[in-house]
Structure formats: structure tokens, C-alpha cells
């Protein structure tokens, strides 16, 4: 499955250059929520050009990035430093990316791992996640897709505490009573819309791509040829934003959606 090609979902232009249309771009208009946005990321990738592209892109997006060119260095660095997210290539000289993550998990390291792989089959993906990976992205990928996923992983780590309420600006979600209010006014959502909004709220301020939504809200990873996800988001947007002066669900061109106050 070419689950990683977020850019061609919905027919829009694919994720273009770095940070194009990104909400952050070195300015301070991004809300603080538990962490300062800048993450420490380790990239374990043997292909020098691909690694340089990744490191440059992640740095321009405001993150601190280290690079290891082989499995041995990667394992050493991941074990000795404290990273927020590891980006691991599946096929590395000397040591398989899967083995590295298995070793790290065996040693008790909980750092979220995003696998990058040219092996895109359903089985490969399952194997990657089973080995302790948290997400799996098939090469080639749009950088915007990768960035959204990396930031989602970093967020997951900092928001790991179980909560019963989510709040973004004047939007409130009660996870136990399954109720949503905006500015004190109750909003009725269908169960699927509720899950969609929950995912957006949990990743508040981050870009979430269409494939991320399909994977996490519907639990499928494939490429719908039609804009099914966009229609769902549009319907949710109707309920959340229409009667209020400031929209909260923003479309990020060529990447996906972002919910922020």
C-alpha cells in the first residue's frame, strides 16, 4: 500500500517545499501546549542525500536534528541521548532498522519511532509496528506528511497522560460524556465526527494529513481516489465553525488540516 503518499490524496498539489503554508515558519503565532514545539530528533538513514534533505527540512521547521549514517552509530546515539522522536530507515547497512528498534525497546527506551521504508506492503508495515515502531511511512513520501507525523509522535509523548477532557480555545470536549461544546453551546456530533474532532484536538496546532486521519480515525491505510476525508472534515467544520466568528479547522494547502484556536 502506498499509505505514505499523502500529497496525492484529494487531488490537490502534493506537499511542496519545506514549510510551505506551514502555520509556524519561525514566527511565534503557534500556541504553546505542553512543549515548546522544538523537538530533538535523531535521523538514522544511510542514504546521504535523503538524510541531508530530511535534516534540512526538519531544521527549517524549527527542530534540533542529529544524524546517524549507520545502525551502529544510531543505536549508540539513541541510547545515550534523550530524543523526542527517532526517524529510522528500515534498510541500513550492517543492521536492520527493525533490529535497532527491537534492541532499544528491549532496553526500555520508549522514544517514539517513525519507520521510513521503501518496503510498502501491508505485511512490512505490520512487521514494523510489531517491532516497536509507532508509525510507518513508505518512501517516497511528501515532506509535509513526514513532518506532520513526526510532530504528531512528539505530541503523543508529551500528552501521554490520560485525560477525560480536551480543550482548545473555547472548544471543549468531554471524553466520558461524549459531549462537545463551543463557547458554552452544545454541538451534536455523530460518533465518527466525534472521533475525528478528538484526533484533531489531540494534535492541536499540528498539521494532520489525510492519510493520518484515515489511519487513526478509520484504522485503514490506503489511498482513496476520491476526496472522502475532505468531505468528512467539511461536515465537521460545518458544525464546529459555521456559527462562530473565528474558524478553528484550517486547511493547510498540500498537506492536510490543522485545528487551532
Amino acid at each position, binding site marked *: *500500500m*502506498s499509505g505514505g*503518499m499523502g*500529497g*496525492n490524496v484529494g*487531488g490537490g*498539489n*502534493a506537499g*511542496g517545499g519545506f514549510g510551505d503554508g506551514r502555520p509556524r515558519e519561525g514566527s511565534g503565532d503557534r500556541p504553546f501546549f505542553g512543549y515548546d514545539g522544538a523537538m530533538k530528533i535523531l535521523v538514522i538513514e544511510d542514504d546521504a542525500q535523503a538524510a541531508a534533505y530530511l535534516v534540512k527540512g526538519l531544521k527549517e521547521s524549527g527542530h534540533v536534528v542529529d544524524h546517524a549514517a549507520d545502525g551502529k552509530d544510531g543505536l549508540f546515539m539513541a541510547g545515550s541521548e534523550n530524543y523526542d522522536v527517532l526517524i529510522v530507515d528500515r534498510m541500513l547497512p550492517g543492521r536492520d532498522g527493525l533490529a535497532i528498534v527491537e534492541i532499544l525497546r528491549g532496553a526500555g527506551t520508549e522514544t517514539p519511532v517513525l519507520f521510513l521504508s521503501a518496503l*510498502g*506492503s*501491508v*505485511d512490512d508495515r*505490520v512487521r514494523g509496528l510489531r517491532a516497536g515502531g509507532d508509525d510507518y511511512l*513508505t518512501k*517516497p513520501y*511528501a515532506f509535509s506528511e513526514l513532518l506532520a507525523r513526526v510532530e504528531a509522535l512528539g505530541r503523543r509523548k508529551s500528552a501521554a497522560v490520560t485525560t477525560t477532557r480536551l480543550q482548545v480555545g473555547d472548544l471543549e470536549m468531554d471524553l466520558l460524556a461524549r459531549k462537545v461544546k463551543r463557547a458554552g453551546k452544545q454541538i451534536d456530533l455523530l460518533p*465518527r465526527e466525534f472521533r475525528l474532532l478528538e484526533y484533531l484536538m489531540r494534535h492541536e496546532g499540528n498539521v494532520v494529513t489525510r492519510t493520518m486521519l*484515515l489511519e487513526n480515525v*478509520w*484504522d*485503514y*491505510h*490506503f*489511498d*482513496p*481516489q*476520491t*476526496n*472522502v476525508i475532505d*468531505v*468528512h472534515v*467539511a*461536515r465537521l467544520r460545518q458544525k464546529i465553525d459555521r456559527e462562530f466568528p473565528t474558524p478553528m479547522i484550517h486547511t493547510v494547502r498540500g498537506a492536510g488540516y490543522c485545528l487551532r484556536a
Partner: protein
Amino acid sequence: MPDFALLRTTTFRVALLYLGLFLASVLVILVLIYWFTAGFIERQTDETIAAEIAGLREQYRQRRLPGLIEVVKSRSAVPRTSTLYLVATPTFTPLAGNLSDWPDAEPDPEGWIEFEIADAPEAPDGGSHDARAVVFTLPGGYHLLVGRDTMERRHFQERVLISLAWALLLTVGLGAAGGVLISRNVMHRIDAINRTTRQIMSGALQERMAVANNGDELDQLAGNLNAMLDQIEHLMVGMRQVTDSVAHDLRTPLTRLRSRLEITLVEAATEDEYRAAIQEAISEADRLLGIFGALLSIAEAEAGTMQRSFQKVSLSDLARLMADLYEPAAEESGLGFVSDIRAEPVVLGNQQLLAQAIANLLDNALKYTPAEGCVTLTVKGPEGERGACISVADTGPGIPAEQRESVLRRFIRLEASRSSPGNGLGLSLVDAVARLHGARLEMDDNGPGLIVSLVFPRMAPE
């Protein structure tokens, strides 16, 4: 230097082993035959003598020497008898019987003697004969001899021995021939398999092992090897098809992409023009990657290796989820969406691939059905011969019956749909996924529209 290659062959060793075993069993049988024939006759001789003695002893007890002599005389007079009698005086002068002289031999402790008689009584050939007898000394110094001419017996034993020797000789000959024949036959077939294997390795991939059709182990071996080769060939053909498709159908858009970039390099002047060209190039590349991904998915489904990781999939749950995903999009396009779930069938399969297949069918239905139309997603349980079934129906233009086969082929797009987006791989993938699951892809007229069904095989009851 002698060539020992023959001695090392399995043929020779099997033949030798066969011969050895055969010889040993035949030898045992021959010894038994000898024991039962020649041995029996020898024992019979002794028993006859013992019976004669018992009879004479009775006569002697009743009538003493004269009675004995009388009986001996009368018995000796029987023509062609092979029993020998002789009553002699203490000085070994014959008194009665069919021997002319007391034989000149020393009796063993039990009284048995073996001797030769020059003129056997009524003997057919008249020459000297072997004989075997018991001698007694009667009260008063008289001597009695009772025996039998053993010539005939010896002849018989010799004849038996000669027959057995011939039998043994024949056994060696026949055994050797049989061993060579049988092992030749087996080895010949193994050689044939080896020869074919070598031919296949050297490139004659269409070759197959000869099957003798008698259902033995070698046939099974040949059959299994052939099935394996068929499977390999099938995979190779599939792979070649993918490579060919990739070569043919990715070359065009790649060429287009390349020339567009080239033109941009020559003609573009402003940054905006460059930017636009790059955006276009990226979406073209994404389209290419989409095709590539779809081709790989098809190849993966066709390879069939995923059957190992099959799990139970509820078709009704799958349909509910897909309906949940697609219903809003259908309504947005002004289409009705009906999900008609009549049963809760469970099939063995890969959830993600089945979802992708249903999504492709729904994508097509949404794409080709004009506004005001209706898309129906149906799940049915097993009915009679048919297993569980999931189908997508639309009210669009449908596909003419004669074109239904061809739309399953890769990159085939009907004339009417050339203008709409798509890569012509959607139904190919559905077909590959169906075949991976042993399911049948059926296309029917929905009057108007198209109804595409995946009919699964009946699951064996647990």
C-alpha cells in the same frame, strides 16, 4: 585404470542388494525343499527296515528259526522288491534270502552296515548297487540281515540336488536380471527427472517432468516438482507483466515530466513560472508514484504470499466502516447511498486489502454515477453454492457485457472514461485481491448501471 563409475551408481548397488536378498531367501527355500524330499526318503528307508524287522521278530518269536527262514524265503521271492533279506549260519553261509553273500562290512554300534551288492535282486540295471541294512545275531550264532537297496534313493537324491543346483543357478541369473531391470527402471525415471531439472536450470523453463500416471512416489515427486515449477512460472510471468507495465506505462508520463522540466529550464523567466512548473512536476511525480504503488499492490496480491497472514474478517463490519467513510462523499456528489447489510458473514482474508478493493469499487461508483443516482453497498451471507458476497451497485452508465473482461486488465480504460481522473488500475487491483482470497469477481447489469460483486468461497464449517 578400471572405471568404477558403474560400481558407484545407485543402480548397481540397488541391483546387488536385491540379488543378495533374493539369493538368501531362495537358498533357505531350497534347503527346506531338500529336507522335505531327499531327507524324507532317507528316513522312510530306515522306517521300512524297522517295520520289516518288527515283522520278522514276531515270526521268530512264534516259529523260531525255521519259521523265520520260511518267511524270508517267501518275501525274497516277491518280484522287484528292493528289500534285502539274508539268513546265514554262524559261519556266514547263506541259508535263505535274496543276497548271495554275507556282505563284507563292519557294523556300527547300532548294527547298521552300508555295502555294495554286485548282483541286486531283480535290479533294473543289473550293475552294482548301494545298500543299507541292519544285522542281528540270532540265538545259536545264526545271522540275520534286513536292508534295502538304496540305489533308487540315491538316484532320487542326486536328481533333487541337481534340480536344486539348477534352480539356484537360475535364481542367480533371474535375480541379477530382475535386480538390474527393476533398479534400471527406477533409476531411469530418476535420471529423467535429473535430466529435466538440468534442462530447466539451463533455461528451458517450459520443460516439465514426465509423469508415468501410475500414482507411485516417483509420480508424486514429479507431480510436486511440476506444480512447484508452475507456481514459479506463474510468479515469474506476473513479475514480468509488472515490469513490462511499468516500463510501458510509466515511460510516457516520465517523458512528459522530463520534457516539461526541460522546457521550463529553457523558457521560464520569472520565479512564479518556475514555481508553477515545479508544482506541476510534483503532482505529476505523485501521480506516477500512485501508479507505481497500485502496481506493487497488485503484484503483491497476485503473488499470494499474503495468504499466510490471513485473519478472520467480518464483511459486514467492513461494509459498515466503508459506508461510514464514503456516505458523506456520495451525498456531497448528490448521490444516494444505501448500505444493505443482510447477514454477518466472516471470511478469511486481509482486512486492509479487502478495504482497498471495496474503496476502489466505491471510488468508481462515485466517479461514474451522475447526480441523482444511487450507490448501494450490499453484504449477503452464503446462499446455496455461493459463499458470502459483498457488492457495490451504481446507477451509472455501466460496462457493456463484452468489455467486462477487458476492464480487469491493467491500464485499460474505456473510451467513455478517458477524460475522468484515474490510472486504469483500480479494477485490476480489485481482481487481484479477489483472486488472492479465492473469491470471484462478478460484474452484472444493474439496469441501469453496474453491479460488481466479490463472491467468496464457502468457508468450511469449523
